[in-house]
């Protein structure tokens, strides 16, 4: 029996940026009530495809049809009018606006006496929010919301006025497993009502769980299509050109000496005094829901967040950093979360990015604060090799790297010295599965070299794959300390989630 016209049909799409072929001859069909997964490595062209559908980019070649009718999508407005609702990767919101105003951006406003009718807007938003995120403070400026709340703002916006097609670009990259679950629960309801969904994610198990069909992109071209029982995480990985070897776990080892000791510290979002001790060569994973206080703990150790009370020692000697400068001196290294906002200098060269915090090491002479270029370059090449950075020139701009490589670049900053303590905040967020494995290997190697490593992660699999111990955070407190021998996914989720998401 022939199916009805697909609600969205892409045919033969191609798009180049200068010399980069971001997409070549990509076709895809989507039926109502269907969830379609789109996967591929960093830079495979997923976001480009979505931006074409959203009217941000125009294809060089190819056609788009909505419900059997060919449409030209030249601007975001055209996509909106065709019933397409998009949540872009890292979709920006207007920070000064509250949820209500953000939701109505670019939408027809209800009016009264020629003025926008804020109370009608609020009512409409509140109706949707009540269903999908009852705790969301919709009158608060979104700049004051946390990562997961902001993601739900985007979802409310996308669902505000009955689109037929929902396109989501890595919507769960910054969410924990439990929050992702909540997100997908909402999606499932929407899909059941007949909305068609395109989902991009690097978490392949999500595709397998949520989608009935999937398309794999490699270097801008379709390399595989899967549906039904063929659709497994393993099949996707092999279509991406990776192998499905189960990820190596950190080998068991016996702790040697304590590098970092926290005694009853309080800072920022930590609700209770927190103690913790980290051995050299040990990886401790900090797992918890978004906003549970892990970043604040790392920042306190790094010296970028003020310590309210408590003591810290490094290798037994007291440590009380007034700023990150002290932390660097004492052998602490740090990879911040959100590489675009807080990590990278996107318009600077790779070399610039890689050597910045330890520039003193390359001085021409002790008294001359001028880096020796040869030594600096050599150090960069070595560091890049040790983290497996793929690049063509030390002078290319950091923004030209793929997401995974950008993350490796930040790691390479600390690769030219021996640190005592490594602080890693969401080190593999938004990184494709192959690069993710590479990054985890780098982290293990760092531990093997004798670092004590603290990894904050919202990715349950990552906590399980990396941690010798896993500390579970909830509402600013450590609620569980689980050694690797006893760890199971369910135990983690139960511990993390036994109370609902932090309310505003």
């Amino acid at each position, binding site marked *: 029996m022939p199916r009805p016209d697909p609600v969205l049909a892409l045919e033969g799409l191609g798009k180049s940026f200068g010399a980069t072929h971001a997409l070549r001859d990509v076709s895809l069909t989507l039926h109502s009530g269907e969830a379609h997964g789109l996967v591929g490595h960093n830079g495979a062209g997923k976001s480009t495809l979505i931006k074409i559908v959203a009217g*941000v980019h125009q294809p060089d070649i190819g056609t788009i049809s909505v419900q059997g009718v060919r449409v030209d999508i030249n601007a975001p407005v055209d*996509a909106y009018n065709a019933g397409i609702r998009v949540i872009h990767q890292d*979709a*920006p919101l*207007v920070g000064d*606006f509250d949820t209500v105003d*953000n939701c109505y951006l*670019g939408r027809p406003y209800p009016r009264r006496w020629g003025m926008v009718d804020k109370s009608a807007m609020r009512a409409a938003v509140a109706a949707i929010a009540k269903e999908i995120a009852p705790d969301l403070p919709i009158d608060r*400026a979104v700049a004051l919301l946390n990562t997961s709340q902001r993601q739900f703002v985007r979802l409310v916006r996308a669902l505000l006025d009955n689109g037929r097609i929902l396109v989501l670009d890595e919507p769960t990259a910054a969410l924990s497993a439990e929050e992702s679950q909540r997100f997908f629960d909402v999606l499932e309801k929407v899909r059941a009502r007949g909305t068609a969904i395109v989902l991009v994610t690097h978490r392949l198990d999500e595709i397998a769980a949520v989608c009935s069909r999937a398309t794999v992109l490699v270097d801008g071209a379709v390399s595989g299509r899967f549906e039904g029982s063929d659709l497994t995480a393993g099949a996707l990985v092999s279509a991406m050109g990776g192998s499905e070897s189960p990820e190596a776990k950190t080998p068991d080892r016996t702790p040697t000496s304590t590098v970092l000791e926290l005694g009853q510290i309080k800072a920022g979002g930590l609700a209770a005094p927190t103690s913790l001790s980290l051995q050299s060569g040990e990886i401790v994973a900090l797992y918890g829901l978004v906003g549970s206080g892990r970043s604040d703990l790392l920042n306190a150790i790094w010296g970028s967040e003020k310590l309210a009370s408590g003591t810290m020692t490094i290798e037994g000697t007291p440590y009380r950093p007034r700023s990150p400068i002290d932390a660097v001196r004492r052998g602490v290294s740090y990879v911040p979360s959100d590489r675009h906002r807080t990590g990278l200098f996107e318009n600077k060269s790779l070399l610039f990015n890689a050597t910045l915090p330890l520039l003193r090491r390359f001085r021409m002479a002790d008294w001359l604060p001028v880096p020796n270029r040869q030594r600096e370059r050599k150090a960069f090449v070595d560091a890049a090799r040790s983290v497996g950075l793929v690049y063509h020139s030390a002078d290319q701009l950091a923004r030209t790297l793929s997401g995974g490589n950008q993350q490796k670049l930040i790691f390479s900053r600390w690769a030219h010295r021996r640190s005592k303590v490594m602080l890693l905040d969401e080190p593999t967020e938004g990184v494709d599965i192959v690069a993710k494995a590479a990054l985890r290997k780098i982290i293990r190697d760092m531990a093997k070299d004798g670092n004590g490593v603290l990894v904050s992660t919202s990715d349950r699999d990552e906590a399980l794959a990396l941690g010798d111990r896993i500390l579970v955070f909830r509402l600013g407190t450590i609620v569980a300390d689980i050694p690797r021998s006893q760890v199971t996914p369910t135990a983690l989720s139960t511990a993390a989630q036994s109370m609902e998401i932090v309310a505003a």
Partner: protein
Amino acid sequence: MTLTTLYRYGTLIAFFLLCLGFALASPGVFASQANVVNLLQQVATLAIVATAATMVMTIGEFDLSVGFVASLSAVICFVLFAGGYDMTLAIPLALLGGMVSGTLNGVMVSRFGVPSFVATLAVGTIVSGLAFGLSGGASLFQNVPDAFKALGRGAILGVPVLALWFIAVMAGTALVLARTEFGRRVQAIGGNVVAARLAGLPVMRDVIVTFAIAGGLSALAGLLLAARLGSVQHTMGEPLLLPAYAAVFIGTTMSPTGAPSVGGTLLGVLITGVLVNGMTIMGVEPFVQRMMTGVIILVAVLLRHFGRRDP
């Protein structure tokens, strides 16, 4: 009221302290009705130009042509008067001149991506050359109709006409920004232009319209200044530029996110206005006056910023 709230309104409190100080130092003068009327008239043109600057800063850009445009519109109007034309032609053409300059600014910035600082400075230079050429470098005061002068003088029900003008302009602009679709869009563009673009807002058009409005407001300010003084020199609007932006920036200290706002700008205009007025009344020496102006502005914004947590 917590200490944080105190700090939050530091700039406002500084303003009140300033007024109180002047009122106590000059009994019956600074706080007299006559002086309030003076003050309102004195700040009117600055307030309107500062409102234009606020609009442009709301979209995250600069407009350095405001003062030059004010001069140009005054020159256009008075050259037409001198040529025997009347207000019904002169005023619309003068305002049109301002809006055309503003549109040019907007096109350069949003269509061609020229940094607004250099685009508006270049357009401002062209505009000032035009004003110079049209006026022939001379002072213009011929054939000015009394009806025109009345636009910038006298009072209605005790409120000076000039004050009515600037209050109307500021209230109107505040309303447009807060309550119309255009205003929402403009704020979104300033808040996050990428988000605005992705949401499908007509960013280019709105930027051009914003600059055009700013040009129109600057032109209005020029006309009112001309009406107040009864004569026009081709450089008369230039001294408005820096004080206008100073007012906007003083105003940004009132917002938790540092965003410009019409209300904040009004405060900024009043602070600078009261400072000069009060010190002149007290007969402070010119150079001390200038130094005090800097010091007090610094103290006013510091009061606000002391309260912020370290970044």
